[in-house]
């Protein structure tokens, strides 16, 4: 049904598909904000929005309307054009990513032969808008946020790309539709779990999501690069953020979770394929929300050293291992086993590192008058 152009006109077809995607994205973003508030509220023993419409379902609409009518404030010492164009430059790359994503078999806006490459290339542009917002706002918090975002996003693009290249090696193609089509028997997450782990961490960082939400750190620089924005321009940043979350989750679902493919190669029509893409991407999104509700924030230098000292090394090792397996044509089960071992080792190393702290029950000391444990001269 969607394989050929609408009305046989390629330009009209492109316009129609783009309009559909933009409308879909707007609705999805409105409900993602609602979903995030609801999901995190449950993690925090709260209810979340309940007042606007049934179960608060119209909250996103109300928020959007409020933002539309709000005053658009521009600080006096802001650089006018840089300030005003920054939101659009953050938003446009995210929107461009959606062009290449496969929503159902043979259906996306465009089915690109180098889809994965296109996604990387376009997402790299995102940083321009963020930096512009940081520099143009005339605000020190915004400046810090913008610079932090630049450092972070450039660093984390490396493990992201390398981890996905490892998957592309196994798949043998960069065409997203072909990659999804290959996963009719097993999703790639079972074969390349380590790549998935690295991809997920890097995506959290690219999206400025906890525990890597350093550029927008609310308790330090109160929102970071968009601190001076209000009304419609602020909502562009929000739109970009959630659209990027959605785009990345569909991207991840396509590469790792089998996208529109049913498990075990079942084919139930394009409606089901579309639903499946959405369900799988929602799984990814829920995981992101879960992480946000649970984890505190890393510090900038810790974030960078985690990227440069851990993630990049691991991702290159993954690339090497995959290369060896493919070159010598060793069985896929063995490749999967090696990957699982790597993924479990990485995650448990992170988890077990927390054990170096003292246990709470060991903290209890008994009172001895005027005695210092280190033997320092001290008389309280």
């Amino acid at each position, binding site marked *: 049904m969607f394989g050929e152009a609408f009305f046989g006109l390629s330009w009209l077809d492109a316009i129609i598909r783009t309009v559909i995607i933009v409308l879909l994205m707007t609705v999805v973003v409105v409900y993602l904000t609602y979903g995030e508030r609801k999901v*995190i509220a449950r*993690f*925090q*023993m*709260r209810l979340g929005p309940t007042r606007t419409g049934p179960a608060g379902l119209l909250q996103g609409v109300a928020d959007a309307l409020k933002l539309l009518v709000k005053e658009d404030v521009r600080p006096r010492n802001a650089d006018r054009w840089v300030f005003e164009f920054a939101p659009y430059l953050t938003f446009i790359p995210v929107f461009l990513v959606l062009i290449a994503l496969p929503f159902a078999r043979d259906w996306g806006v465009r089915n690109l032969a180098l889809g994965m490459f296109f996604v990387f290339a376009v997402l790299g542009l995102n940083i321009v808008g963020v930096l512009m917002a940081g520099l143009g706002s005339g605000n*020190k*918090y915004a*400046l*810090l946020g913008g610079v*932090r975002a630049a450092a972070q996003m450039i660093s984390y693009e490396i493990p992201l790309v390398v981890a996905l290249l490892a998957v592309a090696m196994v798949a043998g193609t960069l065409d997203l539709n072909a990659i999804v089509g290959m996963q009719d028997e097993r999703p790639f997450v079972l074969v390349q779990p380590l790549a998935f782990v690295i991809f997920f961490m890097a995506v959290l960082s690219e999206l400025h999501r*906890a*525990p890597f*939400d*350093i550029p927008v*750190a*609310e*308790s*330090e*620089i*109160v929102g970071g690069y968009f601190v001076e924005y209000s009304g419609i321009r602020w909502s562009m940043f929000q739109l970009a953020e959630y659209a990027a979350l959605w785009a990345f989750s569909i991207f991840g679902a396509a590469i790792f979770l089998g996208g529109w493919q049913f498990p075990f190669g079942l084919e139930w029509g394009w409606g089901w394929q579309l639903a499946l893409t959405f369900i799988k991407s929602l799984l990814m999104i829920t995981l992101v929300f879960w992480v*946000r*509700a*649970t*984890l*505190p*924030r*890393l*510090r*900038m*230098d*810790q974030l960078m050293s985690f990227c440069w000292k851990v993630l990049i090394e691991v991702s290159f090792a993954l690339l090497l291992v995959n290369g060896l397996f493919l070159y010598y044509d060793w069985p896929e089960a063995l490749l999967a086993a090696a990957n699982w071992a790597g993924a479990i080792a990485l995650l448990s190393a*992170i*988890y077990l*590192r*927390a054990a*170096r*702290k*003292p246990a*709470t*029950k060991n*903290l*209890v*000391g*008994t*009172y*001895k*008058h005027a*005695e*210092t*444990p*280190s033997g*320092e*001269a*001290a008389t*309280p």
Partner: protein
Amino acid sequence: MAIWPEERAAAAGALDTVDMTVNVGPQHPATHGVFRMVLTVDGELVVDCEPYIGYLHRGLEKLSENADYRQAMGWWDRTDYLAGLCCEGAYVMAVEKLAGIEVPERAEYIRVLMMELSRINSHFMFLGAFGADVGSFGTSFTYAWRERERIYDLIEEVAGDRMFPTYFRIGGVTMDLPENFESRCRWVLGSIRQGLEDLDGLLTGNEVFVERCLGLTPVTPGQAIAWGFTGPMLRATGLPWDIRKAEPYSVYPQLDFEIPVGRQGDVFDRFHVRLAECYQSARIIEQCLDALPAGRVLAPKLPKTLRINEGELYFPTEGTKGEYGVYLMARGGAQPYRAKLRSPSFCNLSALRELVVGSYLADAIVILGSLDIVLGEVDK
């Protein structure tokens, strides 16, 4: 840890860099009230910090000198407003000691019980808010808030008010405990222990949190004493100094509890000591419930207007933030000639510059959070 200007200049090489001042507060999510600090940062590195206080000054001492001994109680509640009962307890006990008033034993036990409930309440506020400082998206906050609500409900059942009960009287307490208090209190204690375990698991069992806090700005016992640290800040350095043991007041000598101490006085220890202290407070409350004697709760034959002839005293108590000392000087009449508060938050805060300089901007927020200041007490 600290990096001094010469080293920074060397690191920057030929580049000419300019330090930037970042204003944090008085309206800022991380300042826990109306505290302001101006940070001079070199990139992410804090090279200077200038704290500004006084936004919440209400003239407690002068007000107390112009009011009846009993009238002043309500203002003392509002110093450390997270643990109002500890503050009014300190003031009331100081006045009683100065006037030589005997308090019934039941009232003493009720007071200790209520003060320890307040201490847990205040510490929970810290545990939750500190999680938010480190960057957890409010989850630690809502975890802590659940228990705080239960404690506040309990305090309301006893005293009729939640934050500023003015429940104590010179000579005892206003009224006896309600009928089902014991079972309610034991239920709340169970809930508190559960909440502590939840918070312990959520934060100290978390690698990101441990990475952020462990080893950050360690303080030696000598330094802590030189800076005038008291309370958990001092105990985190490994020095078991607690006024409840060192200069016991009320019925604390009859109660069995331990003093949690840290190992190196870093941010993690400060957090951990407060966490462990809540368990000890719960123990104290249980013992009070077991040992609660029968009898009256207010001393008989109290004068209608309390007049104290001559005398002065300094009465130190273990407040939630440290040594909460009340100095009173009487020269006859119904009002103190001089009233003075030794507020622990103020003394702990005075070391802020020493602790913050040389750390990163994100850590400055965490260090400020770990001091656990209450601006009502800092500014009096």
